[in-house]
């Protein structure tokens, strides 16, 4: 699976999961956690979604707010574990 496909899937999930209304514009580089779109609690479902979708296991120490702060960064993380 290439990077662009993963990016698109992650972005689609993030919009469906966290956008409150049509005015919330979320792109590949939008700060998700530092921008207040995803709270630290809600990272849990994102982590579990990625693990289920890509059959990977992301250790808690790797699932930091920094690593989840944009779709691009999340994609980097997924690629690291998908190999």
């Amino acid at each position, binding site marked *: 699976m290439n990077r662009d496909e993963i990016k698109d899937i992650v972005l689609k999930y993030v919009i469906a999961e966290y956008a*409150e209304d049509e005015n919330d514009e979320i792109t590949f580089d939008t700060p998700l956690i530092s921008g207040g779109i995803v*709270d630290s*609690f*809600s990272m*849990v*479902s994102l982590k*579990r*979604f990625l693990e*289920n979708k890509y059959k990977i296991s992301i250790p808690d120490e790797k699932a930091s707010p920094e690593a989840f702060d944009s779709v691009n960064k999340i994609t980097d993380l997924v690629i690291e574990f998908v190999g």
Partner: protein
Amino acid sequence: MSYSDKNRAIYQAQLKELQDKGLFKQERYIHSSQAADIEVEFPAGSPIKKVINMCANNYLGLSSHPEILKAAHEGLDSRGYGMSSVRFICGTQDIHRELEKKVTEFLGTEDTILFPSCMDANAGVFEAILTDKDVMISDRLVHASIIDGMRLCSAIHDTFKHSNMEHLEEKLQLHADKRLKVVITDGVFSMDGDTALLDEMVALCEKYDALLFVDESHSSGFIGKTGRGTHEKCGVVGKIDLITTTFGKGLGGASGGCVSGRKELVEMCRQKARPYLFSNTIAPVVVSGVLKVLEILSKSTDRRDKLEKNTAFWRKGLTEAGFILKEGDTPIVPVMLFNASLAQNFSKDLFQEGVYAIGFFFPVVPNSQARIRTQVSAGHEIHHLEKALEGFIKVGKKYEILGKTKQEIIDRYGM
């Protein structure tokens, strides 16, 4: 001296930042008992002004009810002022257990444990019943005290979109492998005044073998035909695993709270909940007052019936005047103004008109959702509501928002 000029300057800067951002909270001093008519000193040092209170949680008008005052006096005389101990050492009187039994009966649950406040109940309950093998799945608009309680618990936490049952079901499926799943919601949401879909939530929890937790602080005593709460309104009495509620709002308005529900869960709180273990419980004088509150409410539905009529009158009056309200049928009636400055100025002008109601804006509510939150009481008479309505209409005309759409108000005042 450890409180050096450098340390002081740090806090002075933080407080100034709150002031600069318009987030600095100021208390209004009330010189009378809590009631529909109150006497307020605001700002501090100003002459006392008589106003109609439209923002108390005094839903049933029981805060200064003579029978409750009498019961509290009797409790003070017979059981004293304080316990000077936590419950499990020597801080439990017969009336504490009596109140737990009466609350259990009132809410239709299996058992109840008292806490110093509902904030404490919510802070202690999750940690007492869950471990890191479990998951808490909460509505995104639950009260701050629940969020604090979840932060203190080792179970993982996820959220679902406000009252979105499809999203909740997805989350129950996502976390199907967890040992215990607890779905968490408010019964009535304090900022919007809307009601949780408890019947649908019960069905989902049964389907996915999850526990259901409901905070009934803005419901107990008046929601449902006999005022038992949102679970009565939704036809699911006996099916809620955990209810927390407060005695600081509709049920007398003094203080205290509880966890009520399945007996094993309540017993776990008695063994492990830290606010219960490490803090005195509700003072005997308040326990005596709450016992009388439950007696009054169990005998008659007059007060919740009056509240329902007052709420209908208030919502109709504001709607006909051309205000935009959050839809609903609870006594929490948010008047939407969308802009934070407008909400603050509107509240100040209302006070001059003899109406006490507070503006709420970001971060308490989402951006562009600023509002005046009004709360109706059975302590209001129609003349109170008519006068308050006159005040709202006068100020609404001043800002030219009556009959205007959300977009028109935003175009004029900004988000």
